[in-house]
């Protein structure tokens, strides 16, 4: 059997001490270069943020709205990290975590049904449809919390006038985008998707009803319903449908997601009212995010002057 013997090492094989010591300097140099590279990247990111990490577009020259409240606005952090957007998960922190890669490019909204001019609107067309306004609204969730948000958009009636509803159009149905591959958490939500909502035509035409494309001076973040949503400030938050893709004018009252899920808890109208309790929690009070104790809830969320007339003679306890 051949046993291979390692050749004897001689002094010449030993790494000279100077080189050996240099090894440390070499590593230091590499380390410093690496750190510099990382710092440079960070600086670059700070000067010119990459689009994937920060996709918001700033809106300039926004028109101020007489409908805006002067109440203290909630922080952008709160409004972007406390969301009900069940397609991205049912925990309030889920949408911010899970909507990052939601693809809203090449978006369009189709308008159909009882209209003289059915058509599709691209996002560019929507953004140019009317002058963009900043509307600072109170937003009241059916779960008895509320926020104040500076939304950006224009009255939905601007769009309605363009498509010319026929005389048969009594209601407007809305539909959210849904794609189980982009929204895998949605399967656990316990409600049917795509999410649908609806308004009576006069409600849709009310100047307060906002077609919303942004907030806090920027385009909508994904978790808040990018790229376009509805905001109906005198109704509970779930009426303000997010990530809108379809609008249908119709003669019949459209189905609405939460009403389908629990008809005894959520009605079609869902106007904010301290007098009509949800079976599981009181609607008399609400917690404004940022406050500890609850404050009284206002009828129609404080928008009675603009909207109460639409419900004259209606029993709002019956039509909740």
């Amino acid at each position: 059997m051949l046993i291979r013997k390692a050749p004897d090492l001689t002094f010449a094989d030993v790494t000279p001490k100077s080189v050996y010591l240099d090894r440390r300097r070499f590593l230091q140099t590499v380390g410093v270069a690496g750190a510099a590279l990382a710092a440079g990247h960070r600086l670059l990111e700070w000067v010119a943020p990459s689009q994937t990490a920060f996709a918001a577009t700033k809106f300039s020259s926004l028109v101020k709205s007489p409908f805006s409240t002067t109440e203290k606005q909630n922080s952008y952090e709160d409004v972007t990290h406390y969301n009900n957007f069940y397609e991205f998960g049912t925990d309030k922190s889920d949408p911010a975590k899970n909507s990052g890669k939601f693809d809203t490019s090449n978006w369009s909204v189709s308008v159909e049904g009882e209209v003289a001019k059915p058509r599709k609107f691209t996002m560019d067309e929507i953004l140019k449809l009317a002058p963009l306004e900043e509307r600072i609204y109170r937003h009241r969730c059916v779960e008895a919390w509320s926020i104040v948000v500076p939304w950006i958009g224009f009255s939905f009636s601007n769009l309605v006038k363009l498509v010319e509803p026929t005389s048969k159009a009594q209601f407007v149905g809305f539909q959210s985008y849904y794609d189980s591959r982009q929204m895998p958490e949605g399967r656990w939500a316990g409600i049917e998707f795509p999410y649908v909502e609806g308004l009576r035509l006069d409600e849709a035409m009310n100047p307060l009803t906002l077609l919303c494309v942004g907030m806090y001076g920027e385009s909508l973040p994904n978790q808040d319903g990018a790229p376009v949503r509805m905001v109906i400030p005198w109704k509970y938050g779930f009426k303000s449908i997010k990530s809108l893709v379809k609008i249908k004018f119709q003669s019949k009252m459209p189905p609405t997601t939460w009403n389908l899920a629990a008809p005894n808890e959520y009605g079609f109208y869902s106007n904010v009212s301290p007098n009509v309790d949800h079976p599981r929690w009181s609607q008399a009070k609400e917690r404004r995010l940022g406050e500890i104790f609850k404050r009284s809830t206002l009828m129609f969320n404080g928008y009675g002057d603009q909207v109460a007339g639409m419900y004259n003679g209606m029993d709002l306890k019956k039509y909740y």
Partner: protein
Amino acid sequence: MRALLTSKWTKVALFLLCLIPLAALVWRGLHNGLGANPVEFIQLTTGRWTLRFLVFTLCVTPFRKLFHLPDLIRFRRMLGLFAFFYLCLHFLTYLGPDQSFDFSAMLKDVAKRPFITMGFLGFLLLLPLALTSTAGWIRRLGGKRWQMLHRAIYFAAIAGVIHFYWKVKSDVREPLFYGALVAILLLWRLGDWYFKRRSAAGIKLSPQQASAHPAR
């Protein structure tokens, strides 16, 4: 294992371990980590920990028997009291920030809303157990009666799960998870009780039974 379970220090270590959820809340509170709705965050967290500690407490007896670790009994009272401790914090967030310490408003709310009623029932069931958790009370009540009273924890755990199930809007995964744990732990007891009764009956009847059923 025995030495570990009977050591005084294990109890101290467990006590400190049980305080970690509270410490985490305090730490979050000091570092702006309670989110946009801190009251709700504390409410949900303490509610979850109440259910978890109820489950831990209910684990003690099955684990003692299944793994032949009778010394686990030393930790049962502490775990049960921690369930009650987190329940008290949970209840305080409701009584305080939600009801502004208005007792009559709270009682109205308890009467009106089934999910609140169920949570309050769980609280009422656990309250006497916490009060009678001392050795003195075991003596005063007598072991049998004390044990009967403390079976109320089964109903408190069920009430807690129903309270959670009725609270969520549509995603019932989490309450069902706790429901499954409680169901397993209670069914184990039912099975244990049934087999014990049968074997006890079997011992009593064994001579006749043995002759009546020779094939067994």
